[in-house]
C-alpha cells in the first residue's frame, strides 16, 4: 500500500499531471506553431534553421518578432537586432520565473535555472495555479514544458511543410484560442476583491501601452504596474490595520 501512496506523489506522476494540465493550452500552442511554421517558410528560413530556432530559442512571441527581422540572404541578416528583440520580448519572463522560486530548494537553484529554458506562458500559468492550490512541483512544471516543446516543434515543422495552405487561422477562430485560454486562467486565479484593483490597473495599463507602443511591451508594463498597485494597496491596508 505504501508503494502506491509513494507513487501518487512520485516525480513521474507529477510530470504526467503537468503534461495533462497543459493539454488544453497545448492546442493553442499548436495553432500558433502551425502559423509560425508557415510564416517561417515565407520569411526564408531553411528547415534546419526552423528546427534550430524552435528547439533552442523556444519562445513564441520572440520567434514571431524574429520573422519580421529575418532576411534570406545571410550577409544582410541583422544579428544584433534579432538578439536584442529576443531579449526585450522575453523580459517579462523575469517576472514569471521569479514566482517559481518556492518550487526549488536552495541547493537546486543553479540546475533549476537551466530548467527555466522549458518555462512558457502556458506551463508557468498551470504551475502557478497548481501552487495556489497547494500543489505544483518542478516535475509538474517540466511535464507541461516538455509537452509544449513537442507541440511547438512538431507543428512548426508541419506548418513549414504545409507552406501556404493554412495561411489564415483566423478563419477557423483558432486565433482566439490564446485569448480564451488566458481569460479562463485569469478567472481561475480570482481569490477575492483584493484582486480587482491590480487586475483593472494591469488591464488599463496594458491597453494604453498596446495602443501607443508596438510589440509585446504591454505585457511587461501591465504586469509591473498592476502588481505594484496590488502591493501598494496590500501594504497600506496592513499599516492601516496595525
Amino acid at each position, binding site marked *: 500500500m505504501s508503494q502506491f501512496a509513494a507513487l501518487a506523489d512520485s516525480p513521474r506522476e507529477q510530470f504526467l499531471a503537468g503534461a495533462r494540465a497543459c493539454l488544453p*493550452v497545448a492546442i*493553442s500552442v499548436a495553432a500558433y506553431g502551425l502559423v509560425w511554421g508557415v510564416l517561417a517558410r515565407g520569411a526564408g*528560413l*531553411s528547415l534546419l*534553421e526552423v528546427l*534550430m530556432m524552435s528547439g*533552442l530559442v*523556444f*519562445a513564441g512571441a*520572440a520567434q514571431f518578432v524574429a520573422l519580421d527581422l529575418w532576411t534570406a540572404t*545571410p550577409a544582410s*541578416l541583422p*544579428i544584433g537586432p534579432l*538578439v536584442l528583440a*529576443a*531579449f526585450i520580448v522575453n523580459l517579462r*519572463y*523575469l*517576472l*514569471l*520565473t*521569479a514566482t517559481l522560486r518556492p518550487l526549488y530548494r536552495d541547493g537546486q*537553484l543553479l540546475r533549476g*535555472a*537551466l530548467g*527555466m*529554458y522549458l*518555462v512558457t506562458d502556458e506551463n508557468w500559468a498551470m504551475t*502557478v495555479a497548481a501552487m495556489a492550490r497547494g500543489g505544483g512541483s518542478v516535475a509538474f512544471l517540466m511535464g507541461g514544458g516538455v509537452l509544449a516543446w513537442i507541440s511547438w516543434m512538431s507543428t512548426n515543422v508541419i506548418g513549414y511543410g504545409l507552406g501556404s495552405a493554412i495561411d489564415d487561422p483566423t478563419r477557423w*477562430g483558432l486565433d*482566439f*484560442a*490564446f*485569448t*480564451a*485560454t*488566458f*481569460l*479562463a486562467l*485569469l*478567472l*481561475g*486565479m480570482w481569490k477575492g476583491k483584493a484582486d480587482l484593483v*491590480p*487586475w*483593472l490597473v*494591469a*488591464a*488599463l495599463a*496594458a*491597453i494604453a501601452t498596446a*495602443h501607443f507602443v508596438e510589440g509585446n511591451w504591454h*505585457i511587461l*508594463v501591465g504586469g*509591473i*504596474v*498592476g502588481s505594484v498597485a*496590488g*502591493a501598494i494597496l496590500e*501594504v497600506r491596508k496592513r499599516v492601516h490595520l496595525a
Partner: protein
Amino acid sequence: MYTSPEAVIAILGMALATIAVKASGLLLADRLPREGFAAAWLKHIPGAVLAALVAPALVTGSMAEVVAAVATGTIFVLSRNLFAAMAGGVLTVYLMRLWLGA
C-alpha cells in the same frame, strides 16, 4: 537542409538571451524579501500579467471577440473546465464571425 554561419550565430544569440532572462528571474527571486512590499508585489504578478495579456486582445477585438469572451468566461465559471471554456470560446468566435460576415 542548409544554413549559414550568420544564421547560426543569430539563433544561438537569441537562445542565450532568452535563457539568460528566464534563468535570471529564478536566481534574482532569492534576493527579494519574503514579506513586506516585495513579497506582496510578487504575489500579485501572475494575475496582473494574465490581465495584461488578455485585456488588449479584448479591447481591440470586434463584437465577435467580445461575445466569445463572455461565452468563455461563463463556461469557465460554470464548469471550471479550461478546455471546455477554450473550445467554447473558439466555436463562438467562429460562429459569430460567420454570422457577422467579418
